[in-house]
Each structure stands twice: as C-alpha cells, then as structure tokens.
C-alpha cells in the first residue's frame, strides 16, 4: 500500500541515522554495564543517549536537512501513541513477571528467563520507537534484540553479550545511514 506523502515526509525525518547510532551505542554500553556489573549504567545510559541525540540532531543534522515542525495532528498522535505504548509496555512487564513468578511458580523458572529480559524489554522499546517514528527498521532491531535475548537463555551467556551484539548491529546501521546522509548533504551543497 502506498503511504501518504505526509507519512513519508515524517519517516524521512528519521533517516539520518543519528537515532540508530545513539540507541545502538546505548544498548552496547548497557551490555558492557551488565558484563562489568556497573548497573548504574543501565539507568543512565538511555536518557543520556536521548539527550545527546537531541544535541546531535540540532548541530549536525538540522543545518544540513533543515528545520520542520510537523502538523499538530501528527504531534498529538505521536504523543498519544507514546503514552499508550508506555502503558502497554509496563503492562507486558508486569504480566511477564506475574506469569513467571506466580503462575509457573518459583525463582527457578524466573532464573531461566531473566537473562533475556533486558534484551526483550529493549526489543519492546525498539518496536515502540518504530511505531512512533514510522521508521520500520526499528521493528527489525526489535527482532534482532528479541533473538539475541532468546540466544542468551539457550547459550547461558548472561544478558550482557546479547545487548552488545544487538546494539552493535543497530549502531552499525546507524553509522551507515549517517555516512549516507552526510555524503548526500555534501553532494547537495556541491550542486548548489
């Protein structure tokens, strides 16, 4: 199905790769945090990445891509979707813990799956980001992180490695997109 021009314009807004780069880098750092047992990193890395992304967007992307304010309808829709998905995400987490701890009973079952939980939650976050930005590659990242999370349960490597591997893939795609964006900007400036 052909997407509307407004949706394609909104999607293109996220195609510079900075969000992927920062999100991927944050996931790698979270993985390293797990490996080195620096659990403070899990808490601060994502908000920090978001703040750095806003700065990077302003100083690197906007001077080249320009500035746009999307329609109020689009902004309100994004806000509503964000609130809804945060609620759904929290519900899924509570449900997951309830099922594991209460229904299937016992910490042994929780122990088997708990290593996958960080990657699965980040996969959920990636899926939400994909929905909010309409950049569907984030749905692919969600799949990568989910598979990496499942891999930790099978391989018993702990959550850190899954995050490092998944994060590196996201970071790599972000780097490719950013290099392409900067090259396209250079070509555009040269043609002016």
């Amino acid at each position, binding site marked *: 199905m052909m997407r509307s021009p407004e949706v394609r314009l909104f999607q293109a807004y996220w195609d510079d790769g900075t969000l992927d780069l920062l999100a991927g880098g944050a996931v790698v750092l979270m993985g390293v945090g797990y490996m080195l047992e620096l659990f403070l990193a899990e808490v601060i890395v994502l908000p920090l990445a978001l703040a750095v992304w806003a700065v990077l967007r302003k100083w690197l992307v906007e001077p080249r891509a*320009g500035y746009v304010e999307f329609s109020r309808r689009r902004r309100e829709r994004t806000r509503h979707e964000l609130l809804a998905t945060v609620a759904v995400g929290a519900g899924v987490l509570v449900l997951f813990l309830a099922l594991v701890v209460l229904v299937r009973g016992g910490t042994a079952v929780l122990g088997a799956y708990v290593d996958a939980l960080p990657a699965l939650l980040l996969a959920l976050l990636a899926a939400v980001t994909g929905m909010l930005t309409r950049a569907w590659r984030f749905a692919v990242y969600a799949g990568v992180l989910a598979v990496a999370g499942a891999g930790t349960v099978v391989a018993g490597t702990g959550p850190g490695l899954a995050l490092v591997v998944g994060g590196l893939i996201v970071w790599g795609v972000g780097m490719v997109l950013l290099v392409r964006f900067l090259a396209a900007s250079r070509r555009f400036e040269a043609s002016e």
Partner: protein
Amino acid sequence: MAPPVVPEVDGFLHEPARLRVLAFLAMVDAADFMYLLRQTGLSRGNLSVQMGRMEEHGLVRASKREVDGRLRTTFALTEDGLTALRGYKETMHRILAAIPD
C-alpha cells in the same frame, strides 16, 4: 451564465515550483528555507524568488523567532494559502474528471 464545464486553473498556483512548495507546506505546520530547499530540489535562487512572490500574494507567511538561542526564519501556509490550495485541488479534480478514460 452557467459555470464553465472545464474550470479555469489559478495560473499563479499552477506554476510547478510554487505548487511543490505549497504542497510541502500544506503537510507541515512550518519549515525553514533549508528544509524546503532539500525537499523540493529547487535551486536556492528560484526558491528565494518563489517564497517572496508567494508571501506577496499572501499564500505563505515568514516568521522570525528565536529557537535555542538562534534566530530562525520559518515559513507556513496562511489560511488564504490553504483555501487557495484546496480550491486548486478541487479545480484539478474537475478538470481531470472531464478527461475520458
């Protein structure tokens, strides 16, 4: 007198560069010059001339405001611009409908 079967097109809006810019501005609340330059593929000189002419016609409005400590000029479609664009769309629908398959 009955209205013409094939309506007359607004010649000012029908110009490809202007129509392209107006269509972009109809999708967003506001955009700066660089964004329109990148999205429309027009040359800097052409876009500058077209923005000036559309502003004179009251179709777009330029606003200067400070965002993050920097003075930013953004362009937005005016109410008259939106009305004119909708009228143009309706006219084109009627003209295209007159063309047999």
